[in-house]
């Protein structure tokens, strides 16, 4: 004779199969977006900060005039100084056409046509410690009026911005977790109200609090897990789309990367259903045990 041994209390019917997974799924969807946002911020911050902080740009006005010592052009003197400085990597003079293209929007036309002499621009990478103040001073004596700019200030701003964005993402994660816990608590309370007489009876028959709470928690864990996996499944294509939208900022996707999602996100993705399941289990346990306290 096939006898039901599993769901003695009728918890399966009492903890709705619809509401809880759908709401937990929505929370997981939001959590996936927030998590992706936090990871993307971290990734962008790391690459931008590195690039911006080490970027070195030297402007030499009147590049073809003789330098202070009158033994070369100003540009040649600066180039020689840069080449001799071990903290400066890969100095490269921008072609006049490139410089022209960069400044054209500000000048409102071609520099040569306007009769202006453009400064020479040298891009390099600063690999030294601290800021290149000594270098700037040296270039200044070789070729007065030469400007040295680094991306340090930019890097600071990018760092501040990404930190606040990450803070927002974490706050969203925390709120989503709290809302998910509230959803589980409400669903569990509704289930308890529906099964009140049954629970009072089995309590009277000697059921342990742990046993009753465990039955609710098992059901809540399963429903939260199902909902969360569903929410994640919906979030992944949306994330792939967002990553595609952001690709101009993040550079070309690595070939072979799964739907172009950052590997860190794919590695962290299973944590979300795990977290949802844990929230379902813990909240149901606390709710049921708290409710059972009213029974003698």
């Amino acid at each position, binding site marked *: 004779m096939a006898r039901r*041994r599993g769901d*003695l209390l009728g918890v399966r019917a009492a903890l709705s199969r619809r509401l809880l997974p759908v709401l937990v799924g929505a929370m997981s969807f939001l959590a996936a977006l927030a998590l992706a946002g936090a990871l993307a911020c971290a990734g962008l911050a790391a690459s931008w900060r590195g690039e911006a902080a080490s970027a070195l740009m030297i402007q030499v006005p009147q590049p073809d005039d003789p330098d202070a010592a009158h033994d070369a052009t100003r540009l040649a003197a600066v180039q020689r100084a840069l080449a001799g400085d071990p903290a400066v990597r890969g100095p490269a003079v921008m072609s006049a056409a490139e410089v022209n293209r960069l400044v054209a929007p500000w000048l409102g036309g071609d520099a040569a046509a306007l009769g202006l002499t453009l400064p020479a621009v040298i891009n390099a990478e600063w690999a030294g410690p601290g800021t290149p103040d000594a270098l700037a001073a040296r270039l200044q004596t070789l070729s007065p009026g030469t400007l040295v700019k680094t991306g340090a200030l930019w890097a600071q701003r990018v760092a501040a911005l990404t930190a606040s964005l990450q803070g927002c993402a974490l706050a969203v994660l925390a709120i989503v977790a709290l809302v998910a816990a509230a959803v589980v608590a409400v669903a569990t309370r509704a289930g308890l109200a529906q099964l009140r007489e*049954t629970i009072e009876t*089995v309590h009277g*028959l000697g059921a342990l*609090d742990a046993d009753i709470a465990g039955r609710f928690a098992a059901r809540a864990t399963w429903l939260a897990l199902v909902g969360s996996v569903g929410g994640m499944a919906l979030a992944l294509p949306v994330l792939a789309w967002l990553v595609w939208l952001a690709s101009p900022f993040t550079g070309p996707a690595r070939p072979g990367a799964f739907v172009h999602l950052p590997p860190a996100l794919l590695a962290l993705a299973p944590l979300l259903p795990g977290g949802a399941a844990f929230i379902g289990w813990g909240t149901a346990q606390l709710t049921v045990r708290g409710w059972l306290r009213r029974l003698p």
Partner: protein
Amino acid sequence: MVRFDDVWLRYRHAAPGEAAEALRGVSFEIEDGGFRWLTGPSGAGKTSLLKLIYLAEHPARGRIEILGTRAARLTRREAAMLRRRIGVVYQDFRLLPQLDAYDNVALPMRLARRGEAQIEADVTEILRWVGLAHRMDAHPDELSGGEQQRIAIARAVVGRPRLLVADEPTGNLDDEQAERLMVLITALNSLGTTVIVATHNNALVERHPFPRLGLERGRLVRDG
């Protein structure tokens, strides 16, 4: 052994006009393997007294000892374990509507994690005893009041409790079924189970002259 020592019970939400105390200074002792009728007019406090015995209420005052342990000293887990040794027939049956008759009777054994083979043997035997072996697949709402009561009785005794507490167990039974039930209960009693039965059925009490606890307005007016 069951022992009450100057026990008072007060319900928090007493109806207006009702006495605040459902039990007032009740003291008695039932020896191991003893049998007591519990009698008294409606509202005298019979169910209230039984609730204290099966650990469904806490007394406002006094000392209660059940099967050798002080009720007030129990942890929640110990209380649950003690409840498993007490069989209870509730005045309103309290069968689980989602389970059929068999599963309702098997419930206390499942909660105590007994093996399915033993459960099947015991449940089938006790259902035969109460004359409902042929209705084991019926749900409570498909059973008559008397049949539900017999299922409730079967559930109370299936785990061979040390203490059996029955609240009006013959209320919905005809005379013949009530006598069958008394055969079952006295058989359990003679095997060592302590029994206390609340009833309005005077004819039954007279046919089975066990000692009586008599309640009136929350006071014990007869013991013996």
